[in-house]
């Protein structure tokens, strides 16, 4: 054996370490993509519309009423309050990174953000309005007329309102979470515990559903794979039927879109029913009904520590 061989090996290993230090990690979880290029006029119009209470029938609610950007893109209620003052039947998911979900709504009944907007504005429990009214109301406002005329060749239309809102929502990316930085190669950004947490997250199989760029949001899953969650919780509601409401397929009973875990630490309460008030509770439920396993207390803590690294930034500030 040549004497230079160990040195060579050493050099090789060193090189590997170097390259690993800079290169993005190849994980089942993916860092957030950059905000796509959008027409700034449409984005600005969308922002105005997002904060526009006149989208609701009695001008009481805007999108931002429930999707509070300063509050993780959702409100802190189990069920948001509709225009009529009545609580909705399902928890409000975060608007952040919503564009990265493969479907919209808990039961995935909307394929696009536009369809989601369409549904919410017309929903009799949420905004209770109709598009004729919205377009008429927006057309009456000279400021909006101008903004629409600038952003769209055909001015104020239902499609343009939806498109503007969707365009704005596509910019709502909570980038630069510590975990994203880790994925992008800055492995020192996470503490050892957090890294262990990530390891546990993978080992316990959380990653089976919560993976991809949005750490979830790319598949449907039955709530209660390893046990009947709803029986245990009690008070079954219509919303608990999940995707069944969309497909009427027995297969889809209690099936929901796997929610994104991004910003999970700031978007309590959890689950479609808002039943888990804390991350601990949520993780417990997941272990029990989805994974069918019992984690050690340490592991659970580690996982929660990891989950807290998923909180991104908005407007230059951590959410």
């Amino acid at each position: 054996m040549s004497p230079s061989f160990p040195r060579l090996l050493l050099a090789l290993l060193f090189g590997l370490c170097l390259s690993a230090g800079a290169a993005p990690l190849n994980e089942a979880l993916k860092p957030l993509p950059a905000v796509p290029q959008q027409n700034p006029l449409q984005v600005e119009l969308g922002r105005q519309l997002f904060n526009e209470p006149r989208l609701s029938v009695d001008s009481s609610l805007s999108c931002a009423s429930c999707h509070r950007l300063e509050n993780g893109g959702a409100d802190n209620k189990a069920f948001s309050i509709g225009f009529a003052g009545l609580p909705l039947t399902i928890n409000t998911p975060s608007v952040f990174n919503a564009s990265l979900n493969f479907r919209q709504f808990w039961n995935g009944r909307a394929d696009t953000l536009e369809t989601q907007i369409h549904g919410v504005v017309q929903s009799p429990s949420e905004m209770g309005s109709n598009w004729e009214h919205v377009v008429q109301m927006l057309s009456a406002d000279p400021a909006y007329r101008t903004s629409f005329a600038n952003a769209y060749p055909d001015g104020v239309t239902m499609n343009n309102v939806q498109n503007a809102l969707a365009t704005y929502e596509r910019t709502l990316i909570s980038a630069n979470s510590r975990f994203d930085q880790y994925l992008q190669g800055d492995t020192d950004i996470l503490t050892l515990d957090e890294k262990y947490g990530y390891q546990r997250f993978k080992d316990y199989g959380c990653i089976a559903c919560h993976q991809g760029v949005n750490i979830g949001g790319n598949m449907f899953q039955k709530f209660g794979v390893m046990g009947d969650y709803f029986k245990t919780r009690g008070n079954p509601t219509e919303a608990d039927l999940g995707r069944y409401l969309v497909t009427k397929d027995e297969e889809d009973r209690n099936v929901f879109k796997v929610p994104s875990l991004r910003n999970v630490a700031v978007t309590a309460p959890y689950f479609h029913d808002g039943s888990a008030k804390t991350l601990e509770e949520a993780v417990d439920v997941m272990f029990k009904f989805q994974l069918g396993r019992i984690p050690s207390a340490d592991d659970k803590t580690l996982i929660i520590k990891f989950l807290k690294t998923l909180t991104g930034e908005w407007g230059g500030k951590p959410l």
Partner: protein
Amino acid sequence: MKTSNRRNLALLGVVALMLASVLLFLYLKSSSNQTTTYTESRDLIGRIKQLNAQWETEILKARVAISHNYDPLVTPLTEITNLWERFDTMESNHGRNDSPIWRASHEAYLTAIQEKTRLVEQFKSHNAVLRNSLAFLPTAEDDIQEQLSRLVDEDQLQLQNIATDTYDLLLSSLEFAQVTSDDKAADILVGLNKLGVNKQRLPEQFHRTIDIMSNHIALILREQPVVNRLLENIEAVPVAERLDDITNLLNTDQQRTDAIDQRYHFYMLVFSVLLVLLLVYLAIHLMRSFTVINRVNKALQTANEDLELRVEERTRELKDTQSELLDTARQAGMAEIATNVLHNVGNVLNSVNISADLVTRKLRASKAQGLGKAMQLINEHPGDLGTFLTEDPKGKLLPGYLNQLVDAIALEQQGMTDELSQLTKSVDHIKDIVATQQSYAGANSLMEPLHISELLEDALRMNSGALTRHHVTVVKEYSDVPRVMGDKHRLLLILINLISNAKYAMSDLSNRPRQMTLGVKIVEDKTLQVSVKDDGEGIAEENMTRIFAHGFTTRKEGHGFGLHSCALAAIEMNGHLTAHSDGPGKGALFTLQIPLKTVPEEA
């Protein structure tokens, strides 16, 4: 011919225009965006197919992966949806969606893709939990084995059996994951039952781990067939076939379009050829027209030249004719002049005749016969002549008679001498006339110095007989005119004629004395004017213009030469002869004007 030609040309133009518009139409028809749409559509379908295949690959990858990113199972569908939207928009813009076959194929594809999406979603859900359980299963088994190994106070053989059973169950489960069969399923069920039995044999602390493991095995037992079935179903969903159907439809459509295009191209070719032929024809026509124009031009030029030649010829002929005419005229003139001469000679001969007659009459009535009778008386008395002369009464008268006879004969002689000299003059005039004729025949005018008044006297004298006979009084109004150079014969000819005419014009005049006025004067120092005025029958207005024409006469025995030849003669002397009359019965005035050429007086 020309109109029909023009109509033909207009028709050809219209045909050409029609052909051109048909070509344009065909071009527009054939160059429709069908082909580009086709290519793009086929490309889109191809990409969808590719994405579909990619999707399936990702599905298969997901089947074996332990921890898997399911994003690649989402993105192909998103892209497929986008591509399909583009395709559909394009196709509906193209109007293909109207066709029921198209709609059917689209529906079939959409149904297939929806079904596949549904199955893939289910696969994702089931596969995720299945993979998770399978991944966890060795750990779950380890947990049990570890717990078992920690048990020391139990029946080792039973523990060994339990451990083996658990391990077998793990193996069967893992095998089941690889080869899903009913046998394996039965094995697992047996294993689960054993585990359940073993659980009862083991202490309480084992129950949780065993439950977890059996739960997960139950899940595997439940989910693995589901996942397998889903995979089979996914595989069975004929998305690719539907896409192939659409591609086939596209191909068929394109083939039809191609055929149509080809037909259009053929038509275009045909029409192009027609157009080209037409253009060629037009070009030929044009060239021919050009040739015709050239030919016509040439012909025109030739004709022109011909015409010029003919004109020249004609001109020459005309000139010839003119000269002939001139000759003829000259000859005619000569004849005329001869006639004139004869006429004039006739006139003079009249005088000669008269003179001869007079001499003859005088000779016949001569008193010389009386001399003979006297001599007879004398001869009867030869002896007694003296007695007779003194005695005889007859004889006594004889000497006086003889004396008277001598006077009478002397008178007679004198008269005859006069008459003969007149005769000689007339003969001289005839000679002159002949000489004039001869000189005229030479076309030369003989200019000689002359006194116009002498010429007038000559002319009067030549007409003297007639003038005397007709008792015409001649009034002479002569100005003082120097000797001039002139053509004596022509002047004489004119004067004789004018005097003769004047005399004739007054022949019927009975109620008043016949008077002719001759005038000579010089006008403006350059014209010699001779006028002959009568107070005879005059000239009728209508005859004024014809009076100098050849053959015009008002007299029964007239020839119509006189005034004509006079006018000619005047013109030949560079002068002119004019007539004036106040009307019939009011007399006439003839005026001759010739350039005045005075003879320089000899010193």
